[in-house]
């Protein structure tokens, strides 16, 4: 009988190891071989730069110079001594630097997207950028913070790459393999010129920007940048001076975005206890039930003054004029109807609703809804085989629209300050955590409406799919019993309006 037992045990173990052998932890994106090198990108419309050569890039040394020959030698030596780890890095970074730095940013957002624990007296500590490593770590990368971070990094990369393209056409230094036959292009090299390197320009801009946004990560980011630079040199796509010039240009351009970020009013978005009190009393004075935090103890609202942040696609006047009308009054029949609808979802959850709610949840500890749309975009951009500058441009359009969506949405949330369904009817249980800010309009819907609109313009074949995803993301908040139908419908149309601003920019930025 013993043999039965061990046959059974053996089967169980074999079965188990079959399932365990898979490597599910990374997406196998192919190495990027752009279909179009976009050599004219030096004249595309920039975002903050007034012209592509706002920042000087010094002329490269001649390809006949001894120092340059040493740089070529560095590549051949590295290629001769290539290791298995190098191969991994080549396929990692070779998939595209804009893509990979976007993934790095998403990871940082998820890492820092944790609400601080309350103090013993029931108040909550506020993360400080001056002391980012002390608890609570700075930043709390919540959805508005994340939306802004994605926008700044993408936009800075885009301007930097436009500038790099301008200089590549100006200086026309041939790619390394043109100067030394023995250099192998280990990944496809885009275009004929390499000074300054577009990969490293994008990397330099991303790192400089992210060091501001995630100051506790400076050392990790610089180490990752070194890895990126060394891999790109090994690949044969740039020499050391191509990389150095690119990194400097990226950092210079980022400095312009950093200066803007320091003065875009996001730093004051937390508000003060007086601000929080006023929001409440204003709602009461209008005869409405004011929003109250669902957390215990009550947590101050998430970035109540984020609606005053300076956007990229819309100015503040446009934003105020575009503010949606009020949600149904908490005293109205319409409100009671919508509350009853939310309650019906709370009372009748099913597995499909759970799947949808959790797929789009993007709550605590995740890369947030804007991060989710970046993930969706990147997966779809990979087969499009965009050049790096077009990758950056498309992500900048997406992320600027989502940052403006965050601003408009937060403006509405705190202008109207209306309660969540579970506040008005505590019997309403939710399928996911209740976000710590007012209901109207739904952030998920506003982000998704904006994202689906601009992505549908960038990848028209997927436009219907994006709209279906946006609709599902939006409805997930109703299924989850945390939003009224008005929140999601108004949020969606507001998002689409903002997405169309990005489409308008896309049609006139010189890339189409």
């Amino acid at each position, binding site marked *: 009988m013993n043999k039965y037992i061990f046959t059974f045990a053996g089967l169980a173990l074999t079965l188990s190891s079959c*399932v365990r052998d898979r490597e599910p932890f990374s997406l196998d994106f192919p190495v990027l071989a752009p279909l179009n090198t976009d050599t004219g990108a030096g004249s595309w419309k920039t975002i903050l730069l007034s012209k592509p050569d706002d920042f000087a890039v010094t002329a490269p040394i001649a390809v006949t110079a001894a120092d340059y020959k040493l740089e070529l030698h560095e590549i051949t030596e590295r290629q001769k001594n290539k290791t298995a780890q190098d191969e991994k890095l080549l396929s990692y970074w070779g998939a595209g630097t804009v893509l990979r730095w976007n993934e790095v940013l998403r990871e940082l957002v998820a890492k820092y997207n944790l609400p601080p624990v309350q103090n013993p007296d029931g108040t909550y500590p506020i993360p400080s950028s001056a002391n980012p490593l002390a608890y609570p770590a700075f930043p709390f990368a919540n959805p508005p913070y994340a939306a802004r971070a994605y926008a700044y990094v993408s936009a800075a990369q885009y301007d930097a790459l436009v500038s790099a393209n301008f200089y590549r056409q100006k200086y026309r230094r041939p790619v390394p393999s043109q100067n030394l036959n023995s250099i192998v292009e280990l990944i496809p090299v885009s275009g004929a010129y390499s000074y300054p390197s577009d990969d490293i320009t994008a990397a330099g801009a991303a790192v400089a920007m992210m060091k501001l946004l995630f100051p506790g990560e400076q050392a990790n980011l610089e180490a990752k940048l070194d890895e990126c630079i060394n891999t790109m040199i090994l690949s044969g796509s740039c020499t050391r001076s191509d990389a150095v010039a690119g990194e400097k240009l990226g950092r210079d351009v980022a400095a312009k975005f950093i200066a803007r970020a320091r003065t875009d009013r996001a730093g004051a978005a937390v508000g003060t206890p007086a601000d929080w009190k006023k929001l409440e009393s204003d709602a009461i004075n209008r005869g409405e039930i004011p929003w109250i935090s669902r957390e215990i103890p009550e947590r101050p609202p998430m970035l109540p003054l984020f609606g005053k942040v300076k956007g990229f696609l819309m100015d503040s006047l446009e934003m105020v004029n575009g503010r949606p009308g009020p949600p149904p009054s908490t005293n109205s029949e319409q409100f009671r109807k919508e509350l009853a609808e939310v309650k019906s979802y709370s009372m009748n959850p099913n597995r499909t609703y759970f799947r949808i709610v959790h*797929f789009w949840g993007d709550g605590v500890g995740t890369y947030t809804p804007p991060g989710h749309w970046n*993930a969706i975009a990147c997966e779809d951009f990979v087969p499009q085989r965009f050049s790096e500058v077009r990758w950056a441009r498309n992500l900048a359009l997406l992320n600027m629209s989502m940052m403006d969506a965050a601003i408009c949405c937060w403006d509405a949330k705190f202008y109207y300050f209306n309660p969540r369904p579970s506040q008005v009817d505590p019997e309403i249980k939710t399928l996911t955590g209740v976000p710590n800010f007012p209901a109207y309009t739904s952030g998920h819907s506003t982000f998704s409406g904006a994202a689906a609109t601009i992505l549908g313009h960038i990848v028209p074949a997927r436009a219907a799919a994006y709209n279906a995803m946006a609709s599902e993301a939006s409805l997930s908040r109703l299924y989850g019993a945390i939003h009224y139908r008005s929140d999601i419908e108004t949020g969606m149309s507001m998002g689409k309006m903002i997405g169309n601003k990005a489409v308008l920019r896309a049609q006139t930025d010189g890339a189409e």
Partner: protein
Amino acid sequence: MQLKHYPLLLALGLLSSQAQAQTDNDALWMPKKNLCGGIIYQHGQWNHYWEGTFYRENLNIGTVSSKMAMAMASYGINDNLNAIVMLPWIKNQASAGTLIGQQGVQDLSVALKQHLLGRTLCGKYYFNLAGVAGGSTPMTNYVADYLPLSIGMHSTNGYVRAIADVERNKWYATATASYMLRSNVKIDRTAYYTTEMNYSNVVRMPSVANMMLRIGYRLNADKFVELIAERMETIGGFDIRRNDMPFLSNNMDALRTGIAAKWALGKGGLSLMGSGMYTLAGRNMGRSTMLSLGAVYQIDFNKKTIITN
């Protein structure tokens, strides 16, 4: 009977192994062609948990409680080989906050228990040695990625266990050690953060080791009282970050102690069972207290009853 259900144990820290006769965790045997079936009800709850190794409460969940009703059956294929089947229904709730509770049928477990060394007299001591191989798999498509309220981990598991039992003058000690492998779990989202970003909907589940020591007084296989100490350890996994949600592949450990008893009523085949378990220390789990009560009925298909133990 036995509430040895690791996913649940790990998920909630609410349930614990309990020692009752003829389970996959003891060296007691159903005689050939005997069937024992029954129902066990268990209630567990906690209001403090370990976030990594940090012990805390969370006012946004209050007290998490778990109710379980489990059907079980044990059958003597022969006097040295038993088959054990269990199927629990579970309901989990939080007393505070807004998160909705979860309920449903969880995982079906099947185990085979084989005598490796029969009841052997050595000096004044009787020795028993047994081996168990078992597995479990989800019976419903319940939500796994919703800790601490999900009713299980939704992995398919396989485990082996060694059981050693020593007895003298009705006093006994039982030691067990087991190792369980767990399959990957698919969750409803396409990216999750552990100690790094995982762009995947597949979660790799670390293995689990378990050791238990029980000391008690036993009149026979259906009448005993025992004290329990149990150590459960997840091999790998990561800690919950400060104020983050728990996750399937957390490094969940627990040290528990408790008491259990089984008592046969008359000679009709009906037995009552009960147990209480308390968590002394843990990691990424709730500090749970559990009470259970059950009734099992034994039928002999041989027509004549032979009590072999």
